[in-house]
């Protein structure tokens, strides 16, 4: 048995991957978060199926880097992993996200657990939704969010987890999902590291002969906030409603990753 363990956000989960050309926004909404459709179309499934791995997936829509670290700690602390081979693909998402434990999630009495909190665009995107989690996203960004510090922490976490996986004989790779982060040091096993920009969104466009560098930060909160996203919509690589990869986009991502590593 071989396992492909994946961490990431909606792009890895496969959100919106069942989009078909000509779909109305309402039709899209009805299928965009369907778990089975997302799983079927996602690049993680394409890769796992092709190479006959079992995909253990911890990516979800709206996930933060913090959430991924939390799940990884629990999963690897509680599983001995006696499989023939384990590969971890870890997709770094926007730094403008984290998660908070809520005693009453979404205002629902007794619904306790972690909620994703997203505060891209200065906290204005999804502000109303975040208030339901008792989270003032605008105030948080002003007082506590610091992109450079988040990237610095990612650097330490990635180096830490690299050593952890080496100690357990687990093969692992990192991927910047839709933004290139300057980690300040070389991170072993960070894919596309020799490219001018290593994020998957850039790589998808680059594969189509378009290079857009020094673009604005994409927050992936249903906002058309960068030239790369505009171009990806035009090329049919992401859908025009939530800007997540289409089926074509997912196949391209699978191909790009496949070129980087031997599963």
């Amino acid at each position, binding site marked *: 048995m071989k396992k492909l363990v994946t961490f990431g956000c909606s792009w890895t989960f496969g959100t919106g991957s069942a989009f078909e050309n000509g779909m109305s926004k309402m039709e899209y909404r009805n299928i965009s978060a369907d778990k089975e459709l997302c799983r079927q179309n996602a690049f993680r499934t394409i890769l796992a199926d092709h190479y006959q791995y079992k995909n253990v997936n911890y990516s979800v829509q709206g996930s933060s880097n913090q959430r991924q670290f939390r799940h990884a700690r629990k999963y690897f602390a509680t599983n001995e992993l006696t499989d023939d081979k384990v590969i971890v693909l870890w997709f770094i998402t926007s730094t403008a996200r984290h998660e908070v434990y809520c005693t009453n999630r979404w205002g629902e009495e007794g619904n306790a657990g972690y909620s994703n909190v997203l505060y891209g665009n200065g906290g204005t995107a999804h502000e109303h939704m975040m208030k339901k989690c008792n989270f003032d996203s605008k105030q948080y960004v002003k007082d506590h*969010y610091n992109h450079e510090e988040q990237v610095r922490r990612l650097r330490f976490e990635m180096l830490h987890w690299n050593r952890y996986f080496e*100690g357990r004989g687990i093969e692992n790779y990192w991927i910047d999902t839709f933004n290139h982060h300057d980690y300040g040091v070389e991170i072993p096993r960070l894919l596309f590291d020799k490219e001018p920009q290593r994020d998957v969104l850039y790589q998808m466009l680059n594969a189509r002969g378009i290079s857009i560098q020094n673009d604005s930060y994409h927050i992936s909160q249903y906002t058309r906030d960068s030239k790369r996203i505009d171009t990806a919509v035009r090329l049919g690589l992401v859908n025009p409603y939530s800007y997540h990869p289409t089926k074509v986009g997912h196949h391209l991502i699978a191909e790009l990753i496949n070129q980087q590593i031997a599963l």
Partner: protein
Amino acid sequence: MKLLTFGSSWTQGTGASYTDGMTLEEYKVACCIAGETPYDKDHNNPLTWKSLLAEKNGWELTTYARVGSSNMRNFRKMTEVLDGTDAAETIVLVGVPHLARHELYMNDDSVGFNPSGKGYVGVLYANGYGNNANKFKTKDFDMFKYVKNHYNEQNETEQLQYNIAHWNRYLTNLGYKVFWYDELNQIKYTTVPDNYLFTDKDDRSLMTMLAIDAGWTPEEDTDHSGQSMHQDCKRAKYLVEKKAVNPHAILPTAASQAKIADWMDAAIKAKM
């Protein structure tokens, strides 16, 4: 050998400079009061238990413990510094503080903990203490609201347990020797790891051990918050009365620091 310590004021040794009869104002000058005086003057005090322990064994000490530290800060600092360097010659001690603490990055640190004006500040919200909340002045962080909406002791314990399991495997693989201990209160784990110190005691926290040593008859007690002068449990009141801790921040005196150093020394050697 090298000794690296992580934890809060009880591991840092804050209060070691206290002398009997010292007023609060004198204490602030000699040691520190969290949230009021940014610099902990006992950081390099040779009377702290960590220094005594290191000196006794000829270990080279580096302390990452700090007043008001949380498990969140402990793990952040451990991620930053435990990179495998000299692992085989390094002992790591991790003191587990009260669970109701974390840290926040402040873009504008008006408290003055960070000389650059921005950085991490510990936030402590055990029992939702309003007085302490005001002292910390962590801008726009409402502790009452936070405890009500976001704090869950069981979840904190569960996450801590996963973290300890994760770090034990990581550090052991790299060759470190690591030991954990409870600072103020015994954490209610479902399983206590083998490398936890003082597991032979009915209550393994340093604070309870100190109270029993001072003559306290163990009985059911509430948690101690470790938030300055709050005598919020029977052990705190008893220890102040017996002068084993100071009355201003409920932290071990120099004599108590020496006892903890001896206990730590014996417990570590028994596990090694």
